[in-house]
């Protein structure tokens, strides 16, 4: 029978020192090597099990590091009512590991109870804004905490969209009181795919709401003669994204930063090296932040 893993020092905050995504393939290495990263972020759904080795690893890692739970399956943007069963499982996990941060996506992955297992694009309409804001408010009320909402990469836009994505995200944050997890790579990918100015997007983000930044890699592909960037999260962060990250740091301050790498996993040391690069950029701007 497990005893709750608590560490009051970690419960409320995540340090400015960059974190890395926690993947099952690295569980043993993390415990053996104790990499000098600030924190870990785990995909919530990967730990919805009732028990077993993965959950044990997560609890042991949690005893050593602050933890963030990042969900992909709550489908907040769905026209369906809030998925109470999914939220119950998330709440149970949160009670177990006491994460410093809990986040989800400005996206949908289901409707009518059928799921697509992908992060699907929202039309940016008043109806969608009110619906997703209400669901986020409901989640925060039921979880008893603020959650962060992440911008996703997109490959299409709807003709019925009336609100630019950046204004939509800012409005979601201001109306629901949620925080923003700004994924700099997703922002860059969407800006290139839809020909908008990434810096303008940064300017539109309310400073106080941005509570976490993601950095990841992407892959260019050609579809029908047009180059698109695909958010593969399977490559190092590219130079353009590092530059955009620098601009984000300048605007938002030393916001906790996470290196995301979800596929074609490299050794743990590679992720740690990416985290070190993020720290170096932060320290160059904010020498006193620790």
């Amino acid at each position, binding site marked *: 029978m497990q005893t709750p893993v608590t560490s009051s020092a970690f419960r409320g905050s995540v340090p400015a020192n960059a974190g890395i995504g926690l993947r099952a393939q690295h569980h043993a290495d993390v415990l053996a090597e104790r990499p000098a990263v600030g924190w870990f972020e785990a995909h919530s759904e990967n730990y919805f099990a009732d028990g077993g080795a993965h959950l044990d690893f997560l609890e042991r890692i949690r005893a050593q590091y602050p933890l963030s739970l990042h969900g992909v399956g*709550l489908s907040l943007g769905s*026209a369906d009512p809030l998925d109470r069963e999914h939220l119950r499982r998330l709440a149970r996990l949160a009670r177990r590991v006491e994460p410093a941060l809990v986040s989800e996506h400005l996206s949908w992955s289901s409707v009518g109870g059928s799921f*697509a297992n992908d992060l699907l694009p929202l039309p940016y309409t008043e109806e969608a804004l009110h619906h997703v804001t209400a669901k986020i408010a409901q989640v925060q009320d039921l979880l008893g905490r603020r959650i962060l909402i992440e911008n996703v990469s997109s490959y*299409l*836009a709807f003709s019925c969209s009336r609100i630019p994505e950046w204004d939509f995200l800012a409005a979601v944050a201001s109306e629901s009181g949620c925080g923003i997890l700004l994924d700099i790579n997703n922002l860059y990918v969407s800006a290139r795919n839809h020909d908008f100015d990434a810096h303008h997007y940064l300017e539109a983000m309310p400073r106080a709401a941005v509570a976490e930044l993601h950095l990841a890699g992407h892959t260019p592909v050609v579809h029908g003669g*047009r180059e698109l960037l695909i958010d593969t999260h399977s490559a190092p962060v590219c130079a353009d994204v590092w530059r955009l990250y620098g601009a984000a740091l300048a605007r938002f301050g030393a916001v906790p930063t996470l290196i995301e790498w979800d596929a074609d996993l490299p050794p743990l040391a590679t992720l740690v090296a990416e985290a070190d690069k993020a720290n170096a950029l932060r320290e160059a701007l904010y020498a006193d932040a620790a």
Partner: protein
Amino acid sequence: MPTLLELQVEFLHAISGAPRASAAEGAVPSEFLLREILAAGLAPAQRLAIYANSAEANYLASLRASFPAILRLGGEEYFRQCGRELRRARPSHSGDLQDIGAAFPPYLATRHADDTYRYFGEVARLEWLYQEALTAADHDSLDLAALAAVPPARYESLRFRLHPSVRLFASEFPAHAIWVANVASDAEPEPLDLRQGADQLLLHRTAAGVEFQQLSAGEWAFLTCLAEEHSHDDSHIDGDSGSFGAALAAATAADSGFDAVAVLRQFVHRNVIVTFTLPTRRPTEAQDAGIAQGGNNERDL
């Protein structure tokens, strides 16, 4: 302007790979949806295809992770075909990708009901039980002092509960041997005789991982009886199904030499049996009669 619901229903249908129910509804994706997507240098259908491919890839990746033996047995092309068909026929109903595997064993059983690959469904069924055992809740071991305090006259009424990770698997095929041959090593598996014997397996998770044990006829009868669904209110006796008395009778019928005490002791020691309850109602007259006759029941556990 379309509603959010209208747009999402059309979108999900378009990327799920499912054909339309009737020709009158048109091809997938619908004209309605295609009109709602801005082209901007790339056809809406191609933009939708990016999401369709990604959703399918995520679905297949989850199946591959849960069914490595089937992947090995059937090969990549076969597996992808099965995965696509399953995804079209049974879209996921959960935001947890790990839940989709439950439909795969019945799908394979149907697909190969009449051909020489019937064992695929059985191997997949075992693989899914293995996943369930891996992720089941943990449980403290049985309170031996409390069990020792139970009066012998009440033994037959005891209802033992199995560790949450326990799964019982029976098959006409040697599914476990096939699974081991295809998962445990990268070497080319030796050919297996499908008639080499049926499985009667206990799956159980310990700190070392999920263990597999072939059970004797008596052990199988004993554990399957104990594992029978209980009513939530243990004070209500629904016949004596699932009770120690019933399990003992079933095991003895399967094997007249069944040594209940030794088996019980072993399963308690290994944390396969993790707790017990005792109904608060009086035993039935039939049980009273059984207790009066049986000598085994008064053994000190």
